């Protein structure tokens, strides 16, 4: 539902790698997944992204998954920065650029690492004419996860691991899309089971680049309900990232693709930009964004 969670998508489950190698250590599912959290913080910190979020009903044509209808496309810009002890809290703002009917809709999100502290979200809708706090629930609670801008991506799909609440098992070492991968099963413990929609998840992690190329999410009846596919794995600012993520909802037969069209990290972001002012003050927001665009150009 917010830009921070976008980063989490490609870093938590599909993770970028570090130059740190796990060679020489005992390779476990946990050790691989631990790389994810570190990579996430790195990608979150002081970042500016341009994204495209496309959704459609899907089908199969010529042996490939494809859209069965013309996709609905949203263009977004987001800015994020880490705060707090060890930079584990994140403030982010995401603005809708397209389609025209949704232009200017913005979302501000504060994500706290502190256990028991709810994340906070504010939304600006020009039709309402003011900033509105959102009661979307927190994924740490027993709530239904919220959708990201109406797509198939939800907060649960994109949140950080809380790895201590899961057990991991490397099921296999195999190949997918011509890449050697670890097949890792991620199972929530009893406490986590009360909070998650999934009874288990299986991730296929690229051995060399430490990016998940495919993930499968199973419900409590052990039925696969979602599948996520990564593509365009590229080295961006020394971190491997999947720039194209596609989440398939296998219940509704709909999918959403999140394309990170432009990714910039380690940019200078004024603290004041990550406030409610950015949602309502168009002149301020566009001026600050233009500064970022110019720097990046």
């Amino acid at each position: 539902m917010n830009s921070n969670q976008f980063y989490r998508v490609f870093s938590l489950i599909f993770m970028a790698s570090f130059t740190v190698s796990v060679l020489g250590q005992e390779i476990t599912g946990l050790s691989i997944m631990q790389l994810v959290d570190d990579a996430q913080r790195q990608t979150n910190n002081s970042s500016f992204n341009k994204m495209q979020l496309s959704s459609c009903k899907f089908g199969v044509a010529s042996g490939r998954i494809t859209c069965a209808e013309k996709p609905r496309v949203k263009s977004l810009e987001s800015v994020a920065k880490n705060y707090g002890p060890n930079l584990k809290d994140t403030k982010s703002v995401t603005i809708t650029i397209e389609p025209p009917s949704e232009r200017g809709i913005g979302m501000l999100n504060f994500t706290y690492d502190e256990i028991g502290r709810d994340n906070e979200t504010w939304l600006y809708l020009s039709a309402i004419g003011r900033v509105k706090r959102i009661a979307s629930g927190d994924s740490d609670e027993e709530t239904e996860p919220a959708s990201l801008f109406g797509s198939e991506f939800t907060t649960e799909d994109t949140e950080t691991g809380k790895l201590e609440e899961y057990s991991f098992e490397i099921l296999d070492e195999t190949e997918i899309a011509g890449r050697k991968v670890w097949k890792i099963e991620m199972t929530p413990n009893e406490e986590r089971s009360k909070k998650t929609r999934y009874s288990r998840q299986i991730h296929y992690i690229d051995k060399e680049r430490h990016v998940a190329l495919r993930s499968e999410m199973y419900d409590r009846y052990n039925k696969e309900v979602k599948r996520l596919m990564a593509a365009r794995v590229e080295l961006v600012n020394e971190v491997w990232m999947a720039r194209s993520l596609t989440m398939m909802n296998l219940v509704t037969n709909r999918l959403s693709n999140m394309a990170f069209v432009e990714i910039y990290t380690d940019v200078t972001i004024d603290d004041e930009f990550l406030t409610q002012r950015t949602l309502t003050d168009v002149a301020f927001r566009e001026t600050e964004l233009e500064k970022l665009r110019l720097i990046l150009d």
Partner: protein
Amino acid sequence: MSSRLGRARTKTTRFYSFIFLFGVIYGQDNSNKSLDDILLDDNIDFAFDDSIFNSPFETEQESSKNDWLDNFTIKVSQQLYSQINHHRIPITPTLSIDRKRDLEINRLGTNVRYQNVFAPGWLLQASAQLRLHWAGDYQSEVENKNFEWEFRGNELFLQRSFANQTIKLGRQTVVWGETLGNSVLDVININEFRDFSIIDIEDARLNQWLLVWDFFGDDSDFSSFINFFPEFNPNPVRGSPFFFEMPFDLTEYDREGDLIFEVGTKWKRSFKGSDVSLMAAYLYENQLSFDVPSEAFKNPKPKVNDFVLFGFSVNRALGKLLLNLDIAYSHDVLLGSFNFLSNTSMNSGSSSKANRLGTSFGFEYAVNNNQNISIGIQAQKLTNIDSTPFDNFSGNERKVFGSWLARYSNAFNNGNLTVSSTLQGDLKGESLLALMDVTYNLNDKWAISTQIISISAADNSPLFLFSEDVRLGATVSFSF
């Protein structure tokens, strides 16, 4: 009266049963489609071709172009609305009004919005609408024309943002209060509910000439405004559903050189899981007040009334639940200023004033990713009524009065299809308005929507003349 209200409630029950059944049937349709056989097939290539998503990476260069047309957002829509329930409204035991099936709205509208940050920290924003009223539309019918056109400017303001301050000058809106659509603090803007195609207050707000100054502090924000030219809710347009022929016309407020203004300020601070605001303002009541003219063939002159408003609003997020509370204390308001927006709302000839204590309480609940429910209750009570011996009050003015509002929305297919409904009523249970809206987005530009509005009202309700009306509307829109 009660039977009429009962019949309308039955209709409402059927109406919501339809929504419920629709949701169930729709859900079943999707859940029956399993892709197990596809997903277990290792021959299928799940490495996607991004080109099916409009090739986002290839269009990168193009999307970064700064086209001056990007500053415009345009929406063209064609709207049709009809009253479809032929019935009679009894006025007296021997007199009744025949309410025939009738086309009320046949309108082509174009809304244009321009937003341009033309220099660092500078914004020019404007919006306007052009309406063409085709044959059958109440505004062309009243003029006996095949079509009538109307242009209205909405926003027009210049904004300068610098450091931690922002100044906006021009036509704009200021919205106070947390309770959606039903706040006692949402009184800065004037509104025009011209017909039943406008139900939500968000669509009814009109802009005024304001100077707004915002200060963004480290812990809290201030927002202040001055209204140089206070305007008032427009009188009902001749021919509209809210207009009723009378032996006189309602006139606009004649300023006669009077220099009147409004001013107000709001302080806001966000705490953990909560936003708190305090407000104070000197305002004029938005709804003009008219006395029945004492002489024949003479039009009544509107009265304007200034008052002082003190407000407090707070919200609290608890998981999926968001609680909202607004409190407003208005000092020296006119007794007759709470009437329904039609020209049947005439005062009793009194200029008596009172203080008014109002509260809006509501909650919003996110059922799941796609479904949302919000309920708001507004209640007001007059205190310190300053009445003269000539006033002829019924006593109702001393009781608590108000309204309630319930909204429900459910989005399907990533928001392509949205079903929403609104129920509105007054606290006395004398009126009920039920609206159902189904909107389908064909693509990013085209959308179609249909609405059904049903009204039931008791004899002493301001909505009495619309009782048992059922309206069916359809809108096709194109945005670019």
